[in-house]
């Protein structure tokens, strides 16, 4: 039973991280119907920036929560800036192009960013300091659920709440939902759609950076390639829940996290990624709209 709980909590942690990344995919897809392949790279860049800042601060003699908070803030700022720049360079000129063009451009961007980090930094795995302190009240449960895992779950939950508030109750959220429903109509209603799209990219990127910093600090090492697999899996999660739907992304992420956790725990750990991809293929075959997505009939 304890093993079950351990796997359950492990799946919850995984799912939370996927959720943070999947939200970026789903929000961008909701508005411009594009799979932002470079999103996983933003997550990776967020983790790298945090590593650099955290190392500098630690060498300057700081420690504890201050390092975590500061490096998180810097990572968020940079991830947002990268998201914005990527959108301006690779996607904005292609708004009117056929669907395949922005997708190929996104893949190119992803390859470019990976190799940019590879060349600017290193191809090796870098050790990432454990930024989350050990909470004393977690001590009795430490063997099945560590402090950093608790941190991941809590931060994800809080981010979800903030995001839901942002989208449901603010004017900007309203504009976002309007742009997602009908871009032309939103434009006619006086919404600056280009700015809304940029904002969406920034919000998605900041969430990815939060996920990147937390998971890097939990796992303890990063390299330039972590964004690729994480991005694909988060996309799987977003599709699983129904792409374009925000609760769907969270639900899909948790389902994916648990699937992976239980499958590796009870079946075999060699095929961890195979389970994720198989789940994706199965979902797309049997329910292409995802768990919470609605099947739209295409009108001509």
């Amino acid at each position, binding site marked *: 039973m304890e093993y079950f709980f351990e796997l359950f909590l492990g799946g919850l942690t995984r799912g939370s991280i996927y959720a943070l990344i999947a939200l970026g995919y789903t929000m961008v897809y909701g508005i411009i119907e594009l799979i932002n392949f470079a999103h996983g790279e933003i997550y990776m860049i967020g983790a790298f920036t945090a590593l650099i800042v955290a190392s500098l601060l630690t060498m300057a003699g700081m420690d504890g929560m201050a390092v975590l908070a500061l490096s998180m803030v810097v990572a968020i700022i940079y991830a947002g800036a990268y998201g914005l720049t990527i959108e301006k360079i690779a996607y904005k000129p292609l708004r009117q192009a056929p669907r395949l063009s922005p997708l190929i451009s996104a893949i190119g961007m992803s390859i470019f960013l990976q190799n940019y980090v590879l060349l*600017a930094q290193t191809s090796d795995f870098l050790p990432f300091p454990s930024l989350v302190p050990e909470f004393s009240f977690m001590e009795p449960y430490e063997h099945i659920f560590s402090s950093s895992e608790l941190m991941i779950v809590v931060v994800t939950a809080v981010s979800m709440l903030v995001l839901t508030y942002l989208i449901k109750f603010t004017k900007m959220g309203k504009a976002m939902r309007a742009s997602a429903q009908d871009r032309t109509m939103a434009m006619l209603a006086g919404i600056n759609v280009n700015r809304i799209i940029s904002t969406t990219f920034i919000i998605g990127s900041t969430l990815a950076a939060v996920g990147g910093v937390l998971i890097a600090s939990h796992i303890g090492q990063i390299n330039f390639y972590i964004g690729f697999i994480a991005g694909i899996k988060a996309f*799987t999660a977003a599709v699983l829940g129904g792409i374009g739907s925000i609760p769907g992304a969270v639900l899909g992420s948790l389902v994916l996290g648990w699937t992976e956790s239980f499958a590796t725990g009870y079946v075999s750990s060699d095929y961890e*990624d195979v389970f994720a991809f198989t789940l994706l293929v199965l979902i797309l075959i049997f329910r292409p709209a995802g768990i919470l997505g609605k099947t739209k009939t295409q009108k001509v």
Partner: protein
Amino acid sequence: MKNLKQSILISLWFIFLTFPLMVIRVNTVEQEVEWRWINMAFIGVGAFICSYIWRYLMARKEKGGNEEESKTSWHQTLTMDKRYAIPAAALILTLAIIFPNIVSEYRINTMISALIYVVLGLGLNIVVGLAGLLDLGYVAFYAVGAYSYALLNHHFGLSFWACLPLGALLGAFFGILLGIPVLRLRGDYLAIVTLGFGEIIRLILENWNEFSFGPSGIANISNPTFFGQEISRSSGILFIYYLMIALVIFTIFVVNRLQNSRLGRSWVALREDEIACQAMGIDRMKTKLAAFALGATWAGMVGVIFAAKTSFINPASFTFLESAIILSIVVLGGMGSILGVILAAFVLILLPEELRAFSEYRMLIFGASMVLMMVFRPQGIIANVRRSYEYHGLDGAEEAK
């Protein structure tokens, strides 16, 4: 003046953006920080220049390059007009035949890889360029071909010539296997499923030790034989070179014929508009499956040759990166254009070999050029020329162009 101000702002923005990654490098083990201030200057100047180029290209794009497209371009004359096409083809063929006699074995080897990529590019071109199905797991079929030769040779001692058609068949079979479930999916979902499929194949090859010998791969794959005659390693290279030349010619021939066939035109129609295409009575399912199967056939066949050439394969040769390289060959060459794909394969594979100093920047440049190509010249280096008819006056002279 406005431009200058804007460019300065852009370069400042990029300096800010790249500051932590380009300037600082921390060594977490030895607690050292390396400051590389010089990179900051490079980025600043680079971004400044690039912003001017970007603006110039943007302005040119907005003015519309349609005028130059409508004129007959050099490659069109070269491929369409028999007066030029036949001598040009003869010249290239002669060059290809004497090529191995004038260069070193190393050069022949790189040429073989370039030719392998030409065939892979042309195969993927069927799927992506003609049928418009973005396949990101194309390398899986290549792996299927390579492993089918390696395993059949290892276990049953089957010869190269028996495996070549088998590899092609297995490739086609896997193409259909992937094709059936994804038929209903739209472009971007299709991309991600094919990517997942490619990764699944690679992960299975890597983990299923009893079947594929895992990450250590399979060594000592036999050389091809020449009518039952064993060939030595060095003349084997030559043999594979000529085999590849023959295969490339065969591929060009088939793809060219396909392009103008009923099937080829239904692919293009499917790419342009699926719903309209179905309304015209084209069987979407058959057409898509044919594209997947035919595309995969080439990959399977080339996979067999690749295994024979290297005589050692392991899953590391079949990562997503390979798929991305093949895709960028198709995209940069011009989707659907045979000549463009061939040129792009030579440029992308041979150029990094020649410019060793830049080889580590290869993928960086690939990625950047994919983005730039999509933004500024989505039709590729050499645009695919669609058959079109022009109406000249009332005397009824309708001329094929």
